[in-house]
C-alpha cells in the first residue's frame, strides 16, 4: 500500500514540508494542463529529469513507484495517435484508425504531458509521510485539526479493512454462500465490510475522545511544521520549470491554450 508506506530516506527532500511538495506539484500540473503542445511538456520533462537526481529515490524505487505513469503515458499517446483529431498528411487509415501529421504531433504532446505532470507528482508524494502532511495541513494551512487528525487516524484503518475483507471472504465460503455469482457476492460482502468499518470507526472515535480529542481548549502540536528556505527552494524550482516551459513554448509559437483551435 503506497499511501500507507511512504519511502523513507535521509536526503534533504525527506525533510521538506509536505505542504511545499503539494504546492510545487500543483504549480507544475496547473501550468502544464493549460496547453497541449510537445514543446512545453518536453522542456518541463527535461528540467524535471535533471532534478530527479536529487529526489532521494533509487533507480529501482523510482521505476517501481512511477510504473503506472510509465505505462499510462505510451498508452495515452498510442490512443491519440490512432484516434486523435486528423490534420495534414494521412499515413494510415483503417476503420476508425486515422494516423496523420496532426495526430502524430498530438500523440507526442500527450505522452510527454502525462510524464511531465505525473512523474514529479509521484516523486514528490511518495516521500510524504501522512503524519507530517497532517501536521502541515493543520499548522501551515490552518485546516481544522478535527478534520485533519480524524482523517489521519482513519487512514490507519485502511490496513485493517484489507484484513477484514479477506476474513469476510473466507467466512462466506465457510457459511456455504461462497458459490454464488462473483458480482452478487462482491456487493453483499461490501455491505458487510461497511457495517464492520462503521463499528471500527466508532470505536476509534471513542478512543480519540477518551484522550481529550475534540475538547474545546487550545490544542498544541508535538511536532512543529514550518516552512523555511528548503521549502522556498522547492517552490522556486517548480516556478522556474513552469515558467521556462511556457516561455520556450510561446516564443517558438507552439503554445496553444486548451480549447482554442489550432
Amino acid at each position, binding site marked *: 500500500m503506497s499511501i500507507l508506506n511512504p519511502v523513507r530516506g535521509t536526503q534533504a527532500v525527506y525533510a521538506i514540508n509536505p505542504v511545499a511538495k503539494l504546492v510545487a506539484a500543483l504549480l507544475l500540473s496547473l501550468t502544464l494542463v493549460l496547453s497541449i503542445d510537445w514543446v512545453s511538456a518536453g522542456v518541463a520533462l527535461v528540467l524535471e529529469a535533471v532534478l530527479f537526481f536529487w529526489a532521494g529515490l533509487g533507480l529501482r524505487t523510482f521505476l517501481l513507484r512511477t510504473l503506472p505513469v510509465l505505462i499510462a503515458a505510451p498508452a495515452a499517446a498510442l490512443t491519440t495517435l490512432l484516434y486523435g483529431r486528423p490534420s495534414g498528411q494521412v499515413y494510415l487509415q483503417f476503420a476508425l484508425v486515422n494516423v496523420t501529421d496532426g495526430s502524430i504531433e498530438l500523440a507526442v504532446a500527450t505522452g510527454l504531458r502525462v510524464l511531465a505532470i505525473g512523474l514529479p507528482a509521484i516523486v514528490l508524494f511518495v516521500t510524504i509521510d501522512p503524519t507530517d502532511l497532517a501536521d502541515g495541513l493543520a499548522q501551515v494551512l490552518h485546516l481544522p485539526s478535527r478534520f485533519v487528525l480524524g482523517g489521519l487516524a482513519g487512514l490507519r484503518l485502511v490496513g485493517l479493512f484489507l484484513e477484514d475483507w479477506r*476474513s469476510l471472504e473466507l467466512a*462466506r465460503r465457510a457459511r456455504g454462500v461462497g458459490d454464488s455469482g462473483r458480482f452478487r457476492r462482491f456487493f453483499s460482502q461490501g455491505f458487510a465490510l461497511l457495517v464492520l468499518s462503521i463499528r471500527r470507526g466508532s470505536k476509534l472515535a471513542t478512543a480519540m475522545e477518551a484522550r481529550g480529542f475534540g475538547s474545546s481548549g487550545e490544542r498544541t502540536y508535538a511536532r512543529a511544521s514550518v516552512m523555511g528556505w528548503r521549502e522556498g527552494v522547492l517552490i522556486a524550482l517548480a516556478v522556474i520549470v513552469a515558467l521556462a516551459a511556457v516561455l520556450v513554448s510561446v516564443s517558438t509559437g507552439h503554445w496553444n491554450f486548451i480549447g482554442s483551435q489550432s
Partner: protein
Amino acid sequence: MSGGASVSARGWGWRHAGRRAWAVEGLDLEIAAGERVLLLGASGAGKSTLISALAGVLGAADEGEERGTLLVGGTRPQDARGRVGLLLQDPDSQVLLARVGDDVAFGCENLGVPRDEIWRRVGSALDAVGLHLPLSHPTSSLSGGQKQRLALAGVLAMQPGLLLLDEPTANLDPAGVEEVRDAVARVLAHSEATFVVIEHRVAVWRHVVNRVVVLAPGGGVLADGPPEEVLATRGAELAASGVWVPGFPPARPLRAASPHGSAPLLGAPLLRACELAVARVKGVPVASGLTLDVDPGVATVITGPNGAGKSTLALTLAGLVAPEGGALEAGDTLAAGAGSHPIRWKSRELLTRIGTVFQDPEHQFLSSTLRKELAVGPAALRIPQREIDERVDELLARLRLTALAEANPFTLSGGEKRRLSVATALATRPALLVLDEPTFGQDSRTWAELVALLAELLDSGTALVAVTHDADFVDALADREFRMPGAPVPGGAA
C-alpha cells in the same frame, strides 16, 4: 503524577436512547482519592456504562438519559477532561497514529501541553510501561500486549487523577495479559491516581487492587469491600454469574469414552496433513513441515506462540486457505465423493463436512436476525423448511438464545455472539468442527456451556480442531495437543 481524583455517585442512573431498561440505576458509590478498585458484576450489570460515564465519553443528552449525580474530583466528568484516562479492550482501535512517540503525544496535544513538556512526558510514560522502543517505531508492527501498553502510556502522559481500565486484557494471550498487568502494577506503585478496572478474570487483578465493588444487575451495589472478604462471602454467587473467581472453577464435562485410551480408532482419519506448509498470503509460508491426523471423535488443540501460524493452519485444515506445500488429504469418510482436496470443494459441499468458527464472530454474520442467521447453512443445503425450523429452534434452545431469536446478531453481547457463531456451524451438522480461539474473552458461564457442548459433540463422533491459548480449555477437552514448531515471526499475527 498529579494527586488522585475521588468518585462520587448519588442515585446515578443512565438509560441509552431507545432502550426501555436503565443500564445503571440508583447507584450510590463513593471512591476515595487513590483507592484501587476492581469492578465486578454479571454481564449486563452496567459496568462498562459506568466506566464510560466516568471517562466522559458516554455521549450527549441525545444519546441517553441521565439521573442523579456523578462527580469526578468534585466536577462533572465532561468538565474533567484530562483528569480521567481510559484504556479500552480492543488493542487495534486504540492505536491512533503511525509512530510510537506521536501516538503517546496525542493526548497531551489535545490538552494543550507545551511542546517541550510533551516530549518529557512521552519519554517517562514509555519508561513507566516498559516499552523501550525508538519514538519513530511503527505502531503497526507491535503485538497486542505492546499495543495495550502503548495506549496505557498515551493515557499516563495525560497525567490523569483517575485511571480507568475496561477489560484491558480480554483480547490478549496469556503472555500479553501478564505484560499489561505488570505494567499497570508498576505504574500504580509510583502514582497517587485513583484506579478502577473492569475484568471478569479476578485472578489477574486481585493483588493490584485493595477494594472490590460488585454491581447488581438490577441496579445498585451488590457487594463492596476488601478483595478477600468479598470473594469469600460472594465467591460462589459471582462464579455463577460468570465471573472467574479463584477457587470456584466452572464445571467441566465428563467425556463418555476416551478415544486416546485403550479403545482402538475406527477407520481411516478424516483429514491427513503430511509435511504441510501453510501461508496466509501466497508465497509467504508462515509454517511448514506440519504433520497431523484428524480423527472422528477426537479433539486436537493447536497451541504455540503468537505468529507461529496457528490460525493459518486451522483455516487450511478447514478447506478455506490453499496449502502452500506438502499434502492435505481428506479421507473417504469426510470427502464422501467430493474429492480428496478440501480447498477444491464447493462452499456448499463444505457445510456438512467441515464447519469453521472464526476468532471474530462478527466476520461470519450474514443476516438481520438470529433465526435467519442459523437458517443460512441449512437453506444452502436445500433442506426442507420444516426441518430447518426444527433445527433452528433446537439450537436456539440449546444455546439459551430463544428469547433473542428476532434480535440482530450485531447487537448481542460478546458471549452471545460466540454462542451464535458456534451454533451457525452446528446447524449443518459437519463431521469436523474447526474453532479459532473459541474461549477468548468469555466469562466463565459461557465457557462452561461451550465446553459442555463441544464434549457432547465429540462423544457423538464429531472431530474437533481448536486453536487456543486457554490452558483450562486444553485441560478440559484436548485428546491431542499439536504444538506449532519454529520460532514466532516478529511482528506477525497469530
